[in-house]
């Protein structure tokens, strides 16, 4: 069962709807116990980095998630701020991230491009790394909806699963083994998003 980590942030309903239409069973997890039948995890997130990390801690699921993902190698997909949380730290906040994928989160503001409107808002083209199974059927003309002001910088370039361009080319999807993250919102990206979520379910 795919379990969506529901710690209070992110468009949980949209994920449920997407998977319902794909006929893939999905459930929510509000407590560590709810994770007992999980075979895959979705980690949503919106808003400020520190706030998200705090809420995740408050949910009481943090320890269990570390066990399942780091110890049990359970596939996980972080979405938007959920992806940023996979990093070790973020320029946006003071708290450490989950540290599941080595890297830092930086702000587009630090690019010092005064013409760059923030947040990065709208549909942008996504170029996946060759053969990446998360992007099956999404190798050409893939585009997704972005809504963020910070981006992930991988310590290891091998972890970059897809790139997009805004001010510069940045990694909009990361993958380290069974741990994945996408900066954009597949739950709000029509058939492109549906395909990606389907791919995750079938990984």
């Amino acid at each position, binding site marked *: 069962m795919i379990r969506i980590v529901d710690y209070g942030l992110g468009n949980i309903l949209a994920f449920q709807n997407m998977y319902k239409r794909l006929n893939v069973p999905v459930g929510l997890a509000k407590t560590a116990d709810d994770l007992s039948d999980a075979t895959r995890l979705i980690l949503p997130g919106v808003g400020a980095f520190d706030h998200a990390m705090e809420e995740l801690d408050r949910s009481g699921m943090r320890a269990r998630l570390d066990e399942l993902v780091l110890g049990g190698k359970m596939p996980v997909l972080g979405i938007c701020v959920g992806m940023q949380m996979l990093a070790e730290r973020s320029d946006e906040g003071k708290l450490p991230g989950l540290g599941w994928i080595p890297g830092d989160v930086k702000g587009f503001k630090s690019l010092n491009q005064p013409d760059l*409107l*923030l947040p990065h808002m709208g549909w942008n083209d996504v170029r996946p790394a060759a053969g990446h199974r998360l992007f099956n059927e999404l190798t050409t003309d893939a585009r997704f*909806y972005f809504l963020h002001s910070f981006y992930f910088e991988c310590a290891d370039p091998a972890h970059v699963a897809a790139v997009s361009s805004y001010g510069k080319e940045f990694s909009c999807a990361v993958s380290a083994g069974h741990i994945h993250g996408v900066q954009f919102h597949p739950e709000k990206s029509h058939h492109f998003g549906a395909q990606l979520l389907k791919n995750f379910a079938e990984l």
Partner: protein
Amino acid sequence: MLRPRIIPCLLVHDDGLVKTVKFKDPKYVGDPINAVKIFNEKEADELIVLDIDATVQGREPNFRLIAQFAAECRMPLCYGGGVRTVEQAKRIIGLGVEKVALSAAAIEDPTLISRIAAEVGSQSVVVVLDVKTSLFGKQEVWTHNGRKNSGKSPLELAKEAERLGAGEVVINSIDRDGQMKGYDLALARKIREATRLPMSVLGGAGSLQDIGALIKECGVVGASAGSFFVFKGQYRAVLISYPTPEQKDELMNTALPSRAAHA
């Protein structure tokens, strides 16, 4: 590269979809849920739904209807109308809506913008400015469905919204509403030059050319429209339409040739 967004804007009045001209004479256009569903199937970039009664009637947003809209959308949804408190905004976001639009309440108490942004994130706070031009050519922001003059200029309010942490500003021309004769490009340009906030423009679109002209003028922008996507032909027959992906690509490549070069 980031694409301009083409955004249908739906007005809800008495639980039904309506279209106005200069914010007056609402004409009944049908069931809002079916409209949302059709735009979703046409893969619209984004959708704005505004309840035009809530503020005027001093009532709360219709949460039930909002939940129904959100359930039909596989694209971002922005909801506005009668949002006055942080709790309401949080509740709306919790129903599966991406962004909350503030207008009257944010103009009366600008701290609302930062307070809501603190809770749901800047990216989810949109400030809508309804602009009317006075007899002397002065452009001012009005609220309560175009009935109350705030006395403030759109430039001033857009800059303030940016300062207070809004994620986007929507510039809505009351004068051009429902006319389908083109956007107020001068106004759009003024706001574009004054802030670094993502901006959407609403009011006046009557053709894809109008949308192209806006994109040419402002670069990557949200081009929003009501009548254009809901009426067809000289009798303004109600029929929902939305550009195909091919039409959108063509529009973009014509209006932003530099983008086409990098594509």
